[in-house]
């Protein structure tokens, strides 16, 4: 208790000192003053909101002349509605949200993202009972501990047993267009478990058509409680809610998304297209602040992470116990109680060009929307490209990054070659099922999965 309070005071002091020292206003005039200075940003209580909290606490927003209020939101829908109706100026969003909103799956609105917030950071947790049933099917290492990554193939017999007993195998994810939904589906399908289809053109948005595992929405902070109540047998969620299950002793994380797709893009920072158009200087400046926060988070090989953990554990941010947050933020991940393993890249905020909004990342989400029926009919490859270009705005990011480099606040080497790159990453193949993803060939990619809709399929 005393220790926590002291730590808290130390953080406060440290922050206040840093803020009074550095002041960015001297450089401001060359960029143009922000058109809107008072902003409200929304977030969901997850560790990957860290860039927003850090930009605030480290004074990066203020350096840009932005006065930002940060508000936790009840769930992803409330958050998205807040951005659409203007109650929020911007928010920590699921990568799928701006895409889905722009193409009109769910609430339709033109949302853009100038900044990706992080890589990885999610995990899949199952209840203790399910884990006990899965364990015999999991290969062991020499020391007796389970061999990772664990395939959903180990879960398949458990799901079959539940189904045979007439019990629906329910699992939680955080939102229909969330990374978590696609990751959970990817993992289940890679292990031979059908996660179900959406059919919005028939009014079916439950996503449970032909499903063997039934996925439904639960807000992240309520995941552990829902698992404990027995409503769901497992879930896919961001941190700290997987580690929370370990701490509470109610469940076991079986896999991280890093193992499903190495360095997968995760949250984005979303604003409306209208906002970006109306307040170009504000948009540029908030992107600068976020980039600086992301840099700080990964600086010196994660040296600042312990401080970040202290900040995030404050009740107005993530609010979970510091030790729970520290588990994943500082590069370790605890699976079964006591089975703590190094995952240095579990939370990546800046390195590997994590914050650059690649078109190919957008296209990947779109392919998954098509794979599971959220996009109900075939679209040409060009359509995928157009949507990605409409929503992901590397141009805004590049402008912000260049201005930081010009001012000596960032190193050009930390960013992609803005002049030459085209917004598409090289084909990636570090997926759990070994399938290669090339963002320029979305339809071919969709056709390469054994489970999932393929070109020509329509429910």
């Amino acid at each position: 208790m005393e220790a926590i309070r002291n730590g808290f005071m130390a953080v406060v002091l440290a922050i206040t000192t840093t803020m009074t020292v550095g002041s960015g206003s001297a450089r401001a005039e060359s960029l143009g003053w922000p058109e809107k200075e008072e902003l409200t940003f929304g977030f969901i209580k997850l560790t990957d909101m860290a860039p927003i909290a850090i930009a605030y606490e480290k004074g990066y927003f203020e350096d840009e002349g932005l006065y930002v209020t940060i508000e936790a939101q009840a769930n992803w829908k409330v958050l998205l509605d807040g951005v659409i109706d203007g109650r929020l100026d911007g928010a920590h969003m699921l990568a799928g949200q701006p895409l889905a909103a722009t193409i009109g799956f769910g609430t339709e609105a033109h949302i853009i993202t100038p900044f990706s917030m992080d890589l990885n950071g999610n995990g899949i947790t199952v209840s203790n009972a399910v884990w006990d049933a899965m364990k015999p099917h999991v290969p062991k290492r020499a020391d007796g501990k389970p061999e990772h990554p664990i395939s959903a193939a180990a879960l398949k017999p458990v799901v079959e047993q539940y189904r045979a007993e007439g019990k629906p195998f329910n699992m939680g994810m955080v939102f229909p267009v969330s990374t978590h939904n696609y990751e959970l589906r990817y993992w289940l399908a890679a292990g031979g478990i059908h996660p179900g289809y959406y059919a919005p053109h028939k009014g079916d948005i439950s996503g449970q058509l032909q499903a063997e595992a039934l996925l439904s929405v639960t807000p992240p902070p309520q995941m552990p409680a829902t698992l404990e109540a027995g409503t769901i047998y497992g879930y896919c969620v961001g941190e700290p809610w997987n580690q929370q299950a370990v701490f509470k002793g109610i469940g076991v994380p079986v896999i991280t998304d890093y193992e499903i797709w190495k360095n997968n893009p995760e949250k984005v920072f979303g604003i409306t297209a209208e906002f970006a158009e109306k307040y170009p200087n504000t948009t540029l400046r908030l992107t600068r602040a976020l980039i600086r926060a992301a840099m700080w988070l990964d600086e010196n090989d994660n040296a600042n992470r312990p401080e970040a953990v202290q900040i995030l554990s404050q009740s107005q941010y993530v609010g979970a116990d510091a030790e729970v947050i520290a588990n994943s933020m500082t590069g370790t991940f605890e699976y079964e109680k006591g089975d703590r393993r190094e995952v240095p890249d579990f939370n990546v905020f800046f390195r590997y060009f994590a914050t650059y909004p690649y078109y190919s990342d957008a296209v990947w989400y779109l392919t998954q929307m098509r794979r599971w029926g959220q996009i109900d009919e075939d679209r040409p490859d060009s359509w995928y490209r157009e949507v990605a270009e409409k929503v992901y705005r590397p141009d805004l990011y590049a402008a912000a990054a260049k201005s930081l480099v010009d001012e000596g606040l960032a190193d050009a080497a930390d960013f992609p070659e803005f002049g030459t790159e085209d917004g598409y990453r090289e084909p990636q193949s570090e997926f759990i099922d070994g399938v290669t993803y090339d963002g320029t060939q979305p339809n071919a990619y969709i056709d390469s999965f054994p489970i999932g809709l393929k070109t020509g399929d329509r429910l």
Partner: protein
Amino acid sequence: MGKTITLSRATGVSSLPAPVRRVMSIGLKNVVVPLLGIVLFLGAWSLAARNIDTSLGQFPGPATVAQQFVSLYDEHRAEREKAEAFYERQEQRNAERVAQDPSYEPKIRDYTGKETFFDQVRTSLITVMCGFLLAALVAIPFGIAIGLSETLYTAVNPVIQVLKPISPLAWLPLVTMVVSALYVSEDPLVPKSFLNSMITVTLCCLWPMLINTAVGVASISQDLVNVSRVLSLPPLTHVRRIVLPAAVPAIFTGMRLSIGIAWMVLIAAEMLAQNPGLGKFVWDEFQNGSSESLGRILTAAIVIGFIGFLLDRGMLTLQRFVSWDRNSATR
């Protein structure tokens, strides 16, 4: 007489003069007995707490709550210090900007940091008061009107009877949508969330006040009405000098009823709509799920209880002060 005095001097407590003894016995009853009750309650609570294990740790006992209260206060102080630093930096920044850009009109923005527990208490109190006053402003004149006119009463009574039992929480989504649609302003005077909570409070205060005022007015003694008629008081004077004072006890009964319900509903509404206030504090802590969360939630619950109690006492005191009918203000 002399004999009695000699007698009472003979033994311990009874040697004190009678009034002192009476005060002591009242003191015993009014201080010692409730104190005993509180001690027993605290004992039972800490015993029960020790035996309840949740996934967020042990259920908080009295000591944890006291500790959390102190730490909430410390946080509040720390946040105030941060706020001061924020304003200082802002002034400095404004000054720098004016130096570079003379056309800039410096503006001091409110602190953007978190709302502490005590800020939330304040927000909730302001909300409940504003909602309550707004309800009073609407319900009392309207209640007088329907109390005075039997026709009006007959006309609106069915509507009131149906609207009254609707939980104000059921209105919340409608209120939210209507406020969003109608309250559009670039630089709003008060935030929408405040308006939503306030209107919800108003809706729940409205009916008890309306009905009590109407009944109070309608049941005014015919003799007093006759006095007014003999004096030929003009209608407005009649309302002001006769009807309103006569209905004051009933109006206050309605007000006390209202504020009690309003306070409970407000907390629920804040939880539901994530509007700033104590309800949001409780919900946020629940979402945080940290090892301190339960203690903080319980602290908030106790503070909510205390404030509810104080609101009721305050209303009672006001009623005693304003109302002529001592009997109507005795609970």
